[in-house]
């Protein structure tokens, strides 16, 4: 890891240089209070203050709907894909970088998922520090810092960014605009230390995650699952916006216009009624409380059993998005009672 500083007013130059070389994706404002990752057009549109985008950057690597291959009338299989340009995503906060790390694990389990890795191998990340809002839970999930995944990470200080360069790709990016980067001064290092202290003290929402996986398992029969399942709309929004939800459905779709048939994969959600329906008609989670509970169990327990950490990054999207106002922190607090 190498550290540099970048004057804040030189960031546009740096991003322009990255954009010239790679396909640059940046966070932009969408609605009054919402943000989205889009292809870079000009610096003035880039949001540096956003907390979370509606959909996490996973959409760029694991798109909501994708064609895996097609078969024509002569039974010829076409699994070719447009050779995608190498892209660099700017502005990922630690939670979203942790989200990528978790997807990497999920899509490597039992073999590399070719469709995921085809894109993943051609993307770089420039992280950006953030200050928490009322939904941020990363501190509780131990994802408020990231030491992997990113190529470059920018910590916002008063006049400069403290720039951490982690990979060879990060180094390549730096070299695109030589002269913009300096060695950090003693004062800047001091400011960096102060900043991380301040940020740490800003978390207003804490979720006690001590032995959470155990507790959720022990409280399998708790009445709150039934209670919340009356409120939950089973709309699936929480799953769609989650940076680590990785479930998909695969189906074949005849395309009457192209004259072929396509195998499609599309995001799926365990909130859905026939998600766990199998041939023969048995549904492993036929009731709503079972479906409501399962998301919590998978986030906090199931993934951990396989990979050694919970698959919630604490990004706060599910709580912010839920039209029924269901909030993970409250659910977990109730479980602890």
């Amino acid at each position: 890891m190498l550290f540099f500083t970048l004057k804040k007013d030189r960031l546009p130059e740096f991003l322009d240089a990255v954009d010239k070389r790679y396909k640059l994706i940046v966070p932009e404002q969408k609605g009054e209070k919402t943000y989205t990752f889009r292809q870079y057009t000009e610096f003035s549109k880039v949001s540096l203050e956003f907390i979370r985008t509606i959909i996490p950057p996973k959409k760029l690597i694991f798109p909501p709907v994708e064609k895996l291959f097609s078969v024509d009338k002569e039974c010829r299989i076409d699994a070719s894909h447009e050779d995608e340009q190498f892209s660099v995503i700017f502005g990922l906060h630690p939670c979203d970088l942790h989200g990528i790390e978790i997807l990497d694990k999920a899509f490597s389990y039992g073999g590399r998922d070719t469709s995921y890795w085809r894109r993943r191998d051609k993307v770089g990340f420039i992280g950006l520090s953030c200050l928490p809002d009322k939904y941020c839970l990363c501190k509780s999930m131990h994802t408020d810092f990231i030491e992997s995944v990113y190529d470059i990470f920018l910590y916002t200080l008063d006049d400069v960014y403290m720039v951490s360069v982690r990979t060879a790709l990060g180094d390549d990016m730096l070299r695109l605009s030589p002269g913009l980067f300096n060695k950090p001064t003693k004062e800047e290092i001091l400011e960096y230390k102060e900043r991380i202290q301040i940020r740490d003290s800003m978390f207003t929402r804490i979720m006690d995650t001590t032995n959470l996986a155990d507790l959720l398992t022990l409280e399998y029969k708790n009445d709150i699952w039934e209670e919340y399942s009356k409120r939950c709309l089973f709309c699936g929004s929480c799953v769609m916006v989650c940076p680590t939800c990785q479930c998909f459905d695969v189906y074949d779709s005849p395309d009457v216009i192209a004259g072929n048939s396509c195998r499609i994969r599309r995001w799926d959600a365990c909130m859905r009624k026939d998600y766990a329906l199998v041939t023969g008609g048995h549904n492993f989670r036929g009731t709503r409380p079972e479906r409501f509970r399962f998301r919590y169990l998978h986030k906090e327990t199931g993934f951990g059993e396989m990979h050694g950490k919970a698959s919630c990054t604490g990004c706060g999207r599910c709580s912010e998005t839920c039209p029924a106002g269901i909030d993970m922190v409250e659910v977990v607090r109730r479980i602890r009672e």
Partner: protein
Amino acid sequence: MGKPKAGFYSLTSCSGDILEITNLGEDILKLFDLVEVVHLNVAMPSTGKDPDIAFVEGAVTSMEDEEFLKALRKKVKQLVGIGTCACTGGVIARGPEDRRNWLTDVYPESGAGFDITFPRPLKDIVTVDFSIPGCPIEKKYLLHCLGYLLKGVLPEVPAYSVCMECKMKGNECLLRYRSSACLGPVTKAGCGARQPSLGRPCDGCFGFYDDANKESLIEIFREMGLSEDEIKKRFDLFLERGL
């Protein structure tokens, strides 16, 4: 074996669904490649031939509609309802059961003699093989279903809420951020979240989705300050009659 013969028919409707088919643009040529179109209301004179597969829009609102539909059913292998009117009765099935006085109010002389019944969905009269909802139908969804139907297979249709499509599109939630009474959480997907994508709340024209939690959404609307009457009107527009 020749191409399957397909007919597109209208009962009582605004013709919105057939118009969507004529709006297919260049793709309509593909449709003519794929099937022999024997009847396409509004767009071409009928060939008079009987179809193998019939697509019917509109609700049944007269004895004449009813008899036509029954006769059509006897001729075809597959009968597919297109548009919400065909599937549930649609907007024209809102309001009072008895509409006789409307007729005599509007046509004092001849009104009483008109042949009308309360608007009913196709399934109340005949066996319907498949229903394609939408007010009007979505072109993409129609073509998607057509691919399966022409192979004699039931179409794969998304068994989830409009919210899931809405989120896959990356939209800002209208219910959450703009306190708009969106029916997306209880409505069947398939339209690609057309209205929410344009900043308008979903009106529910595809009908309730399988696992819709209507009670909870009503409670959420109440908390948002909607009156009981406003809530009723929202659900009445399309959803209440059910697919």
